[in-house]
């Protein structure tokens, strides 16, 4: 009678523990296919491709291109963890290249405007002297 009844922890806790283990294992075992990461990286690269980027951040942009290329190779080899890392890095590299180029262009616009103001002020000075 006593043997026919299973201990309470076996009844209740074994499935729970198994579930826990599964969760933990899945969280730390081999990664899933990084489709979203690759896609995000490609979007970032496409957005970054421009003359300004090639002019102001060519090295960083090239690094992004190399990494997305390598990420796809690793994806093919089912090295998902590596592919994911490369894709994330490629995305960050591409976004950085774009941000650097945008900043450089903004700086250029500022200095152009400053210059034109300087020229205008000089003209005004000359005009005042003539008066």
């Amino acid at each position, binding site marked *: 009678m006593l043997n026919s009844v299973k201990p309470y922890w076996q009844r209740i806790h074994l499935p729970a523990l198994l579930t826990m283990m599964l969760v*933990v294992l899945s969280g730390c075992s081999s990664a899933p296919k990084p489709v979203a990461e690759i896609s995000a990286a490609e979007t970032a690269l496409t957005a970054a491709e421009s003359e300004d980027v090639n002019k102001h951040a060519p090295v960083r942009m090239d690094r992004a291109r190399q990494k997305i290329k390598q990420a796809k190779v690793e994806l093919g080899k089912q090295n998902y963890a590596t592919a994911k890392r490369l894709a994330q890095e490629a995305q*960050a590299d591409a976004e*950085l290249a774009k941000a650097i180029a945008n900043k450089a262009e903004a700086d250029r616009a500022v200095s152009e405007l400053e210059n034109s103001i300087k020229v205008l002020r000089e003209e005004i000075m000359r005009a005042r002297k003539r008066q």
Partner: protein
Amino acid sequence: MSRIANRLTIFATLTLILVACSSVQKNQALLDAEQSYAEAKQEQQILRYAPAELERAEQALSSAADADNLDDMNSLAYVGAARIEIARAIAARKASGARLEELGEVKNKERLKAREIEIQREQQAKAEALRDKEAALMEREQALAKAEALRRELEELQAMKTERGMVMTLGDVLFSSGKTELLPGAMSTIDKLASFLAEYPEKSVLIEGHTDNVGSEAYNLDLSERRALSVKEALVQVGVDAARIDTLGLGESTPITDNATAAGRLKNRRVEIVIRD
């Protein structure tokens, strides 16, 4: 027995999994990235213009800290460091954008100033043109007035218009009889002529002496010459430039009336002053 064994097995497995899964110690790459994040977090420009990107950097770095292997940690630290740089670049770009707006306003103000100066200059030019026009008008009026004044002054000098020009005559009564000295009565005429010549520096005069036919011709010629010179002297004394005065003695050669009567001879004894342009 089996109860205890089961329990032990489960705990052992869990422990193993936990150990295998637990995060690795932070490496230098991550520590560096965290340092650079801490610095970025102090910068007002980044906090103001790129808080979202900074947040993404923090997420990457905290994932890196939780990574269960070195590859993930390195990669996430790399991504985090890149995101900090992105935040920095975005913030700088937006600050430049704000600066562009400010400068745009500055430029507009300067343009306005330049335009105002231009308008002022145009107005000045117009005013100058008007002044010039008025000046020209005034000059013309002055020239007319001067011509009119000249006419009046000549009238006052009792000058006669002749084919030789304006001619004024100083009669015999202004000289001592048979002598060359001018009498004081002639001085008002001399003064008038001098001030006339001062006012019209372009004019010069020819002073001609004439006599009647009484006495020898040589005597008359000499007398007429000396009387003309005497008038010249008087003019020079009141300030007229001698170079503007020519003299000529004509004696009895050019009477203006008959020498037969005393009245006629009186008229013929005279000095004529011809005003030349």
